[in-house]
């Protein structure tokens, strides 16, 4: 398909690149402990970008038998209105690809019954009186092909599986929701499912007792899930796009130590077993890791081809595209690492990742409500707690409600009070819990 499309584009435009992707999903859903639905979804799409007269245009289609001529015509019409850009597509030589397994046979061949069995096991393990358990299992097989008129080609087949479980407990007017997930390219092992069950149970048990929230500027342990509000500003500010636009507070700060010197953050598309891993990006740029923050210093920003061209730098292989619209910058796997050589453990059993022993009064924040809805890139956040626990004299004393935490992500990460020993994947981010000091807690 890609060949035919690029062949058609050649001669009528200066240059072109394209992506074809076919996805097949199988999903089962348990609602309140009962298997309620099983579904499949099949989707294929083609995205074309052209440079015509130095201007860029895009077009996409989900038609089963795409009319390539019409697609090229639409992309050319788009380019007539487009901006001038000097885009250099990678050539065949540049697309020597690293080896990374993306396809796992066990995931691809798992039958509907296998998926149902796995979901049922989780439902059984998580059931308890007065709690409603919802579980979903989704398996995906995707074929991707990318190519350009400079001769670069790439294709790969990938698998992914997501198992999510949420437990809701309603007692009077108190609603408690605890959620966790397993996401991977390979099927979860029994141990992985056991970890998921224990993670939900630990957080549920500790939440049964409700205690008064503290208030003031206090130490807060952000769990890997709770960390989202702190990480999001960084993700936006480290994007080459916001740097180019002048809206990133980290622009012009490369090499400056702005964060705790024990903190390193990388974007790594070559992490084995992760669904976001792939040998090349959606613009034919070979995958490689990018050091975003290195020992507290601002490292490299991430770029796609166009943003890199405008910023007069190189793509970091972070081009992502859908069927419609043009390629944009996307992270792959983001990993938080300790730069002082201390291994981040993966003991997910204890709430707080071993960071609470020395805390006299504070919080563990596992979920915040409304993350991403404020003025994110400024670093300022302010959110009611979704799931949080009070720490008193080194121990978790219960769940707090009706409290809000606020702070500035860039300021809080200047000094990290401690790295937890509970490093884990959550979606495409790996991090341990972090202890951050002086977080504002307001209560009613």
């Amino acid at each position, binding site marked *: 398909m890609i060949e035919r499309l690029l062949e058609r584009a050649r001669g009528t435009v200066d240059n072109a690149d394209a992506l074809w992707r076919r996805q097949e999903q199988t999903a089962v859903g348990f609602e309140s402990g009962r*298997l*309620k639905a099983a*579904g499949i979804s099949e989707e294929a799409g083609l995205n074309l970008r052209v440079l015509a007269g130095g201007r860029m245009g895009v077009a996409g289609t989900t038609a089963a038998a795409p009319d390539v001529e019409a697609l090229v015509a639409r992309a050319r019409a788009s380019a007539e209105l487009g901006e001038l850009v000097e885009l250099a597509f990678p050539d065949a030589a540049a697309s020597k690809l690293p080896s990374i397994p993306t396809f796992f046979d066990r995931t691809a061949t798992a039958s509907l019954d296998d998926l149902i069995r796995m979901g049922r096991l989780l439902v059984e393990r998580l059931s308890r009186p007065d709690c409603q358990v919802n579980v979903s299992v989704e398996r995906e097989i995707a074929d991707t092909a990318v190519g350009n008129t400079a001769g670069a080609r790439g294709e790969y087949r990938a698998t992914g599986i997501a198992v999510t479980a949420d437990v809701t407990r*309603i007692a009077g*007017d108190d609603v408690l929701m605890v959620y966790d997930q397993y996401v991977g390219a390979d099927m979860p092992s029994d141990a992985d499912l056991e970890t998921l069950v224990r993670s939900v149970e630990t957080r549920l048990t500790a939440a049964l007792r409700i205690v008064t929230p503290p208030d003031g500027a206090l130490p807060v342990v952000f769990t890997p899930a709770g960390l989202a509000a702190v990480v999001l500003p960084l993700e936006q500010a480290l994007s080459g796009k916001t740097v180019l636009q002048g809206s990133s507070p980290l622009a012009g700060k490369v090499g400056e130590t702005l964060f705790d010197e024990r903190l390193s953050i990388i974007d790594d598309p070559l992490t084995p077993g992760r669904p976001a891993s792939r040998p090349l990006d959606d613009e034919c740029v070979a995958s490689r890791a990018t050091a975003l923050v290195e020992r507290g210093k601002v490292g490299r920003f991430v770029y796609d081809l166009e943003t890199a061209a405008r910023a007069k730098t190189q793509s970091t292989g972070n081009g992502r595209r859908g069927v419609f619209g043009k390629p944009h910058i996307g992270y792959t796997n983001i990993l938080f690492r300790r730069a002082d050589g201390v291994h981040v453990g993966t003991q997910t059993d204890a709430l707080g990742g071993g960071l609470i022993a020395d805390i006299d009064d504070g919080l563990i924040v596992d979920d915040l409500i409304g993350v991403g809805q404020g003025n994110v890139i*400024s670093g300022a956040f*302010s959110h009611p707690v979704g799931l949080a626990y009070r720490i008193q004299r080194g121990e978790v004393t219960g769940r707090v409600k009706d409290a*809000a935490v606020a702070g500035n992500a860039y300021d809080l990460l200047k000094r990290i009070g401690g790295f937890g020993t509970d490093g884990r994947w959550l979606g495409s981010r790996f991090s341990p819990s972090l202890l951050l000091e002086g977080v504002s807690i307001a209560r009613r």
Partner: protein
Amino acid sequence: MKDRLAAAVKQSRAGYTEIRVERTWSSAVAFRGRRLETATVSEDQGGFVRVLNQGCGWGIASFTSLDELPEMVARAGELSRAVRLDEPIRLAEAAPQTADAVLDLDGDVRGVPLSEKKKLLDSYNNAMLDVSNLVVDTQASYRDEVSEVWYVNSEGTSLYQLRPEVVVSGTAIGRRNGSIEKGLESIGLRKGWNSVQGFEPQFRVVAQRAVDLLDAPRVRGGAYPVILDNELAGVFIHEAFGHLSEADFVYENPQAREMMTLGRRFGKPVLNVGDNGAAQGLRGTLPYDDEGTPTQDTALIREGILVGRLHSRETAAKLGERPTGNARAISFRHPPIVRMTNTYIAPGKAGVGFQDLIRDIKLGVYACGAFGGQTMLENFSFTAGWGYMIRDGKVAELVKDVVLAGNLFQTLDRIDHIAGDFTWNQMGGGCGKGGQFPLPVTEGAPHVRIEEALIGGDV
């Protein structure tokens, strides 16, 4: 197309079968700063089949290749049979509907050249950029679509709907050294080209606000009397209460059902809330939902008492209530689930205005505009675009980072004053639930006063 779908439904051996096919024509233009990002026309199409066999669960298939329709009906049937249920799924009775429902296109966007759309957005984008050189970045986008939806089910319903939509939105980023603030304007309508003209003043206002906020202090955290403007009051009722009134939250959950018992008092007698999918010309408006049920105005809270909830046919059957036309899917890629349409707080007494709400507040917050909101059922968050302190009954200084932390039961019950100045707020974006985002919805409200609400921030 209807005949083709009817034939495929007839082939199905299942007790219940429905097919939805969509073809969406859309165009989009986007600017980032002074630079055009994209100007493009797209065509998206695909189908959705949902099947229910006796004693079994739902079998679902979605696909982009319509040639495979008969095969997909068969596969959905097999999937349904793989889901064995002790307690069968029932669907509430619904009279079969046959109609062609073509909404007013108000200037068919398909007939307007892409270059004209670029010109319009350029003008809105420049309106923001020209406000001040402190406006360092903008994001402006125009998107329109005309969606054709065919729906046929095995009970005799056969519908064709033509649904237009147009959204223009802009974010202005103000920056001075390390301070970064934003202003957001968004207009979303179930209409066409004629309805999105002449909004330059609105875009100027939000860019000016981004600049003004650079000098504004952060609001101090704590509990305050709060007045919500119309826009934020709409987001509030959507997040705080609307999601809990969606019956899929309660229908399988006895404890939740008890919590949401009809007849329970949720607020003071001033509070009236509803959801109206049949309101004229709004973004959440549809003649029929995605199960073929006609939409309607559903009362949810009347004089402070819970009186209704939003249903699909499945949730209505389970609770012994009537379907309300709230089963919606964002596209053929998804099954219909219970969603809001146009949700509103009804106006208070005519003639009651903002001044009547603010007069006796000594220290409080006037929270305006909405960056967004999210609910975890009992607790919710909503983020104002900006706010003002209220001092001695008057609007005082501008403040930023105003985020309200709410508890459903406490907050609704503390609404003590509602103005008569009702407006619908037709924004772009939309609502997200169960992986389906953005669903076009509208919210409507007058100014609303909450006796006491928690605002996050430095303490």
